[in-house]
């Protein structure tokens, strides 16, 4: 059993050739920047040619922890995640359940719900900015049509209302995506189990909990984790709808990072924020994977 036999070596050549081109690009353009982000975050980084960047240790991180605007941006990102992930999961699954049986209308509905997903963030952000304008359609519907609000709301002029508008966009644009994933997963629910449950006289809700949910659990984990990551990734909608305003009140972590880096050219501080965000996303993903590991607990 010679492990280094020529045959063995040759058998590693094929996978190496298949993997190398993509992987080398990946190493250079993704992994190396990942490492470098840490490095930059420890420096007072100078972008100007010839200027010397000085090592300042954890100063950028300490600065972030004492920076009120950083905490505001972090809480806005967190709020965005909390306000957009549950509706996307619940509504996406609900629509998928309503749509799962083949019917003549199914393909049409699928396309209509998915339309916002394929539309550019910049375009839908502009569209929502227009809908939430002082004299826009939302105010018209709430005030003039339904009389739910007392007068017109300047949605994009205060922190909370602007966040609501931004979250409304996030949910509207994302529902189709989770619906599509759930719709695909629902095809994999075992028919015989479902029929057995019907024969046993299980109610719809019970069938959903006992048969459907366990069968689509991997899809559920996938959707939740991706949406949480996506929630912290919110950027274009904030830039376009409010520009982080009024007075930085709706700044989220990524817009704040972007401003530090490309407006104030403070690459070190920008990188520190990016690193904090990355760690946060990783920790959240790890916690979720652990929590979600077994849906039925002891029942399995």
């Amino acid at each position: 059993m010679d492990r280094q036999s020529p045959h063995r070596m040759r058998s590693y050549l094929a996978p190496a050739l298949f993997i190398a081109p993509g992987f080398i690009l990946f190493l250079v353009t993704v992994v190396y920047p990942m490492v470098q982000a840490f490095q930059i975050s420890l420096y007072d980084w100078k972008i100007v040619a010839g200027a010397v960047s000085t090592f300042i240790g954890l100063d950028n991180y300490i600065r972030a922890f004492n920076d009120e605007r950083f905490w505001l941006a972090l809480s806005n990102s967190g709020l965005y995640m909390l306000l957009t992930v549950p509706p996307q999961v619940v509504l996406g699954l609900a629509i998928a359940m309503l749509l799962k049986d083949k019917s003549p209308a199914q393909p049409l509905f699928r396309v209509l719900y998915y339309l916002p997903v394929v539309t550019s963030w910049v375009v839908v952000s502009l569209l929502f900015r227009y809908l939430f304008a002082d004299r826009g359609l939302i105010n018209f519907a709430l005030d003039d049509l339904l009389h739910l609000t007392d007068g017109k709301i300047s949605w994009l002029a205060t922190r909370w209302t602007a966040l609501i508008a931004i979250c409304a966009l996030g949910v509207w644009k994302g529902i189709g995506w989770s619906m599509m994933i759930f719709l695909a997963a629902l095809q994999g629910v075992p028919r015989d189990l479902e029929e057995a449950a019907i024969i046993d006289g299980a109610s719809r809700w019970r069938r959903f909990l006992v048969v459907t949910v366990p069968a689509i659990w991997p899809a559920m984990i996938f959707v939740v984790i991706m949406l949480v990551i996506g929630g912290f990734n919110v950027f274009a909608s904030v830039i376009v709808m409010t520009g982080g305003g009024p007075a930085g009140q709706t700044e989220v972590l990524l817009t704040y990072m972007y401003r530090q880096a490309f407006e104030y050219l403070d690459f070190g501080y920008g990188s520190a924020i990016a690193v904090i965000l990355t760690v946060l996303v990783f920790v959240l993903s790890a916690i979720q994977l652990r929590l979600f590991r077994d849906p039925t607990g002891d029942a399995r």
Partner: protein
Amino acid sequence: MKPVRHLRLIILALGALLMVTPFLYMVSTSLKAQQYVLRLPPQFIPDPVTLSNYERILLRSDFGLYFLNSLIVAVSATTISVLLSAMMAYGFARYRFPGREWLFRLLLLGLMIPAIMLIVPQFLLAKYFGLIDSLLGLIVFYVAGSLALNTFLLRGFFEAIPPELDEAMRIDGASDWTRFWRLALPLARPALATATIFTFLATWDEFAWALAIITSPEKQTLPIAIALLQGPKGTQWGLVFAASILAIMPVIFVFLSFQRHFVQGLTSGAVKG
């Protein structure tokens, strides 16, 4: 069961209406003159209808150039990314070698890090390679950003192809590349279509990276150009939406023509987790 069925259709239709109304309103606004766009009560059917916004976008702006830039970037990045990802996915799915899982996990790491978090070091890297303010700079980093997801998606699909088929071709003397090109790729068409759509949509719409590295107006892609149409005061909404509609047409076309593949690909690839 009849009433339940009707109720279901009604709920679905109401939901669909909520999804579609903003689009219809956007089309309507793009056909209005500026003095009508924020009028109350709003006009759902524009009166009078005007094509002047489209005329201004198509004839009196560089829209064609931005469109071409977006097309070049999205098509090149998608082609390169799907090819490289398919090769990687095949390598991971069909061969055993030391460190395979370790390498794959490194790739998954890339899946978990949103692209924009790497924007600062990637900017420095692009600067080092002289890729700032160039379409090539967009293409290279768009490929980089989509490799992990595509490889992940395609690997599951390649693993589902029965090894016996591979074995049979190997006995017939087919090389590794032939088996990949002639057997695995054709069988993986639905998953390839999914990867193609995902990548095309993502690159066509990408905003943050383009905003960071593109400085010359003649190199702007559509998302940047459209975002810049907002004036500091008093946006020309009709104009903005005429440009927006023209910009999202290709995306909607791609989605509508591929959507059968798309669902198939999702079913068999992505959900396996």
